């Protein structure tokens, strides 16, 4: 079987920059190196033209207008600008924000900061698949609610949220709707008009573009959304985000969006088929494999599985040549297992046993087959070595054991 090792299956963490994107970026390093804010010479005009073209490429992918795109350094900055910027701008109107507990830290932590500054934040729980409903959000709304921030899809478990329902509710209530669409843009169709989205965060490196650049969609009409800038300076980006634009990176983001717009349909089918092949190739040959996240409402390339009786980091070590990530505490500095999996009601033991596979544009069927075989082999070996598996086989109910926790 023709596979090159290592195999990269961590496309929810980041993606390889598409060679076509790199190609588009190259002239902007050495030939067309102007500052897009230089209004009086050809280098500046050239750069500005490239920026405007990228704005349109990005806007076209999400059903927006080019003038509604604000460039940032990435989705973390976009989330910070959207949440803190809206909170500061609309503080007179209200002081309440609604989000959910499975958001990325780039949403949770800005919300926590706002709480310290006197805002009230509701962190909604999710169902066992990781979803919130518009009804949950409606129930949490007060006349002081100014912003709802719900991610489009979760980075760990791939669960897609009912964006259109939430957008409709927010429109009815006159509350701004922000979505962190980092994982969704370019993978699944997103339309800010149809979905009633007022603010949308995205980043280039999850869609085969370069790291270090992202964008925030800021609605210009119905309503015209205003944000308090978080970075002051030369007044770039309609005053919302100062700083010389990273022209080559923005060209890369634009090119990545253009490719995604044209190829998303076919690509989603392909990554979905590979994900299913991987899931079946593992779950059909091993007992006690649990799917984390929603069975159907999920990103096409995302597969998150828990392997009972086997610890995630230990398992990753058994498949060293395959690059994935784990919800196990041992892979994080905090020694806490994934808060996202815990929010689904997955027990700590199964959270420790989870692996996330991220299938992407460059994943091949051979790589999937190799991975399924390697995972089955490693899990089987580790279960032979697992006291929990031995106890479970002997009929011991592990939940009744008095563990000597340390």
């Amino acid at each position, binding site marked *: 079987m023709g596979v090159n090792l290592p195999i990269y299956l961590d496309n929810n963490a980041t993606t390889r920059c598409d060679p076509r994107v790199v190609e588009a970026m190259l002239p902007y390093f050495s030939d067309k190196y102007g500052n897009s804010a230089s209004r009086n010479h050809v280098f500046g005009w050239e750069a500005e033209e490239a920026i405007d073209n990228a704005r349109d490429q990005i806007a076209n992918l999400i059903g927006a207008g080019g003038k509604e795109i604000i460039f940032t350094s990435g989705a973390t900055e976009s989330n910070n600008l959207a949440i803190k910027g809206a909170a500061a701008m609309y503080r007179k109107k209200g002081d309440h924000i609604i989000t959910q507990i499975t958001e990325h830290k780039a949403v949770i932590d800005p919300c926590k900061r706002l709480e310290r500054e006197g805002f009230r934040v509701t962190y909604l729980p999710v169902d066992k698949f990781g979803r919130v409903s518009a009804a949950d959000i409606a129930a949490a709304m007060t006349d002081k609610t100014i912003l709802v921030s719900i991610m489009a899809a979760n980075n760990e478990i791939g669960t897609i949220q009912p964006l259109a329902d939430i957008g409709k509710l927010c429109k009815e209530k006159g509350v701004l709707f922000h979505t962190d669409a980092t994982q969704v843009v370019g993978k699944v169709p997103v339309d800010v008009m149809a979905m009633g989205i007022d603010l949308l965060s995205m980043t280039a490196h999850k869609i085969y573009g370069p790291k270090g650049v992202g964008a925030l969609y800021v609605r210009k009409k119905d309503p015209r959304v205003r944000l308090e800038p978080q970075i002051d300076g030369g007044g770039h980006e309609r005053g919302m985000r100062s700083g010389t634009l990273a022209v080559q990176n923005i060209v890369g983001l634009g090119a990545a969006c253009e490719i995604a717009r044209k190829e998303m349909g076919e690509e989603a089918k392909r990554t979905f088929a590979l994900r299913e092949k991987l899931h079946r190739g593992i779950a059909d040959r091993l007992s006690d494999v649990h799917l984390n996240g929603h069975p159907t409402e999920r990103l096409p390339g995302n597969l998150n599985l828990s392997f009972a009786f086997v610890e995630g980091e*230990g398992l990753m*070590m058994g498949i060293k040549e395959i690059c994935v990530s784990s919800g196990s505490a041992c892979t994080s500095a905090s020694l806490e297992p994934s808060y996202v999996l815990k929010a689904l009601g997955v027990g700590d033991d199964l959270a420790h046993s989870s692996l996330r596979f991220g299938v992407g544009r460059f994943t091949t069927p051979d790589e999937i087959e190799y991975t399924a075989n390697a995972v089955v082999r490693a899990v089987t070996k580790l279960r032979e*070595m697992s006291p*929990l598996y031995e106890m479970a086989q002997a009929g011991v109910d592990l939940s009744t054991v008095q563990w000597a926790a*340390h």
Partner: protein
Amino acid sequence: MAYSDKVLEHYDNPRNVGSLDQADANVGTGLVGAPECGDVLKLQIRVDPKSGKIEDARFKTFGCGSAIASSSLATEWLKGKSIDEALAIKNTAIVEELALPPVKVHCSVLAEDAIKAAIKNYQEKQPSNA
């Protein structure tokens, strides 16, 4: 974070994986850790009643590579030792031998705890302590 060669070596070729008969009077069993903490270690020793030395040691571990390597190393060290010698095995020696980084020190602590738990269980089973 890269693993040390010794951790990888034990992970790939774990020594003494398995179980001894828990009902055997000469076998001591230690079970430490908890699934929700991400590591559980079962360590067993069998003591030769004549010589008083540990003639066999086995482990099963649910945990990361460092936990597996610490358990494997512990069983290797236990064989041939007297109870007193076994009680003298310190987690710091495991850390040193496997070059565990600070974040993995708890794996070695678990191994030491498992040794002590297995010995305690063995001693409780002996008629003189009954």
